[in-house]
């Protein structure tokens, strides 16, 4: 059973039926799903959730789709890892990493697409579509393939080969659009208006975006039914970040946790930082920006939820930070070297900004902090190539190995004492 009750305008509050629509007819504000929270409170408990599947469908009552239409690749309920080595390096007492690199197509986008495709099937669409620089394209292509639906995936024509292959292997109609980033935007907006497709981040966006709340549900459950003191999440459109906060508040509303006191902070690359810049200038009105960063998965120059992200910072006492491309690489390496997680560049942005926020005192050492790692590093191998320690290259004999090791690490050279 599902408990979504209506769509509601986030600006003027007008109510709309649960249709494939995304904006208010009056003020053009974005629509968001509303729920029968009393019904959810009666239907859901800590015990019922704990007995559910080890996927995001354990929170089915809080998702805006009928679970019978789900396309389940095993998304969600990803590890929340206590990161003591990284915490020590940064100067934090308690740090957790929400490791969403382990989803079926290796990014958190599987959460939003899981919900979007279930709702699209419920609406009767037989084709999915999206415009993406990588992660979303991979996820839409995979889920549509699993559901036996058509998929139309639009990407800029200069994408890295790895990202192209990661979508193309599922055999969607993959369209490489010539022209600028803005040209891709314009084409997809135009196509979405006259094709009978479920365009995941356009006409089914209100449902799609709700999938990100499952990150908050999982973190609260994995922490023992409570929200953390501080969250650091990457900012692209601002949707993920705002939905994490919505998720914590909803868990309180249905009686699963106490009132969250979480300070919500966001991370952007300096080369695409409209939200972080607006935060630092003390305004809720951001200036759209032409992206120029290696963190292409965060390269949203005109973020649809930027205003709401800034409102969330204001409401929770959080903030935003930005970081250079060189610092992003250092962030990727620091995470890998201390915690064994290879994140894509967005993870480097999150870790580099987390480091800056601790150094500046924005995050206090005793605040229990959760950082969200949203995509796997194998998607952006190019970013770290040439930035890592060169491997030792030796002939196949022990003497040559010891010589090479000694040249790099003098104290480690030679056979171990007591060795055979």
């Amino acid at each position, binding site marked *: 059973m599902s408990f979504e009750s209506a769509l509601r305008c986030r*600006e003027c509050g007008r109510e709309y039926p649960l249709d494939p629509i*995304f*904006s208010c007819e*009056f*003020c*053009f*504000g*974005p629509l968001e799903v509303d729920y029968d929270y009393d019904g959810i409170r009666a239907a859901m408990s800590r015990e019922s959730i704990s007995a559910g599947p080890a996927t995001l469908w354990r929170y089915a009552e809080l998702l805006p789709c009928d679970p019978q239409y789900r396309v389940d690749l095993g998304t969600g309920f990803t590890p929340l890892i206590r990161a003591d080595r990284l915490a020590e390096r940064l100067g934090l007492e308690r740090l957790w990493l929400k490791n969403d690199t382990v989803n079926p197509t290796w*990014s*958190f*986008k599987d959460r939003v697409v899981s919900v979007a495709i279930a709702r699209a099937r419920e609406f009767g669409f037989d084709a999915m579509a*999206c*415009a*993406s*620089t*990588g*992660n*979303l394209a991979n996820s839409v292509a995979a889920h549509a393939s699993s559901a036996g639906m058509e998929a139309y995936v*639009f990407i*800029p024509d200069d994408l890295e080969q790895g990202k192209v292959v990661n979508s193309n292997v599922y055999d969607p109609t993959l369209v490489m659009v010539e022209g600028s*980033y803005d040209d*891709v*935007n314009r084409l*997809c*907006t135009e196509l*979405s208006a006259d094709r009978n497709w479920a365009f995941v*981040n*356009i006409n089914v*966006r209100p449902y799609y975006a709700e999938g990100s709340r499952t990150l908050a549900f999982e973190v609260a459950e994995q922490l023992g039914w409570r929200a953390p003191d501080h969250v650091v999440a*990457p900012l*692209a*459109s601002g949707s*993920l970040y705002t939905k994490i906060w919505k998720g914590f508040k909803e868990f309180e509303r249905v009686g699963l946790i106490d009132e969250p006191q979480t300070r919500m902070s966001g991370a952007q690359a300096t080369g695409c930082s409209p939200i972080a810049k607006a935060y630092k*200038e003390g*305004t*809720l*009105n*951001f*200036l*759209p920006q032409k992206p120029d960063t290696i963190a*292409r*998965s*965060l*390269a*949203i*120059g*005109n*973020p*649809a*939820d*930027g205003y709401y992200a800034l409102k969330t910072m204001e409401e929770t006492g959080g903030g935003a930070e930005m970081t250079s491309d060189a610092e992003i690489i250092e962030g990727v390496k620091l995470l890998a070297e201390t915690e064994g997680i290879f994140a*894509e560049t*967005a993870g480097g942005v999150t870790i580099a900004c987390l480091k800056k926020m601790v150094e500046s005192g924005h995050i206090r050492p005793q605040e229990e902090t959760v950082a969200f790692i*949203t*995509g796997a590093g194998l998607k952006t191998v190019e970013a770290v190539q040439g930035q890592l320690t060169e491997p030792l290259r030796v002939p196949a004999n022990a003497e040559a190995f010891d010589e090479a090791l000694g040249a790099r690490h003098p104290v480690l050279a030679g056979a171990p004492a007591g060795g055979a």
Partner: protein
Amino acid sequence: MATKRVRFTFEPNQIKRPVIYELGHKFEVVTSIRMADVDDSIGWVVLELEGDSDEIERSVAWAREVGVRVDDATLGDVVEGS
């Protein structure tokens, strides 16, 4: 008659220019403002343009020429990565 929902973003040096008034006089386009906000650093207006579709496109091109950023009213960037 066609309609188009757009968001105009103005940087500080453009805030005093009555762009929407000028647009309504230069082109056969009706402008209907739905939401707006202006502060010291930036201003934006969400509006609906109504008229012949080619005339709407000409008016939008002119707004861009005079330095206004023009986007879809609700969506922001449609292309997504992470």
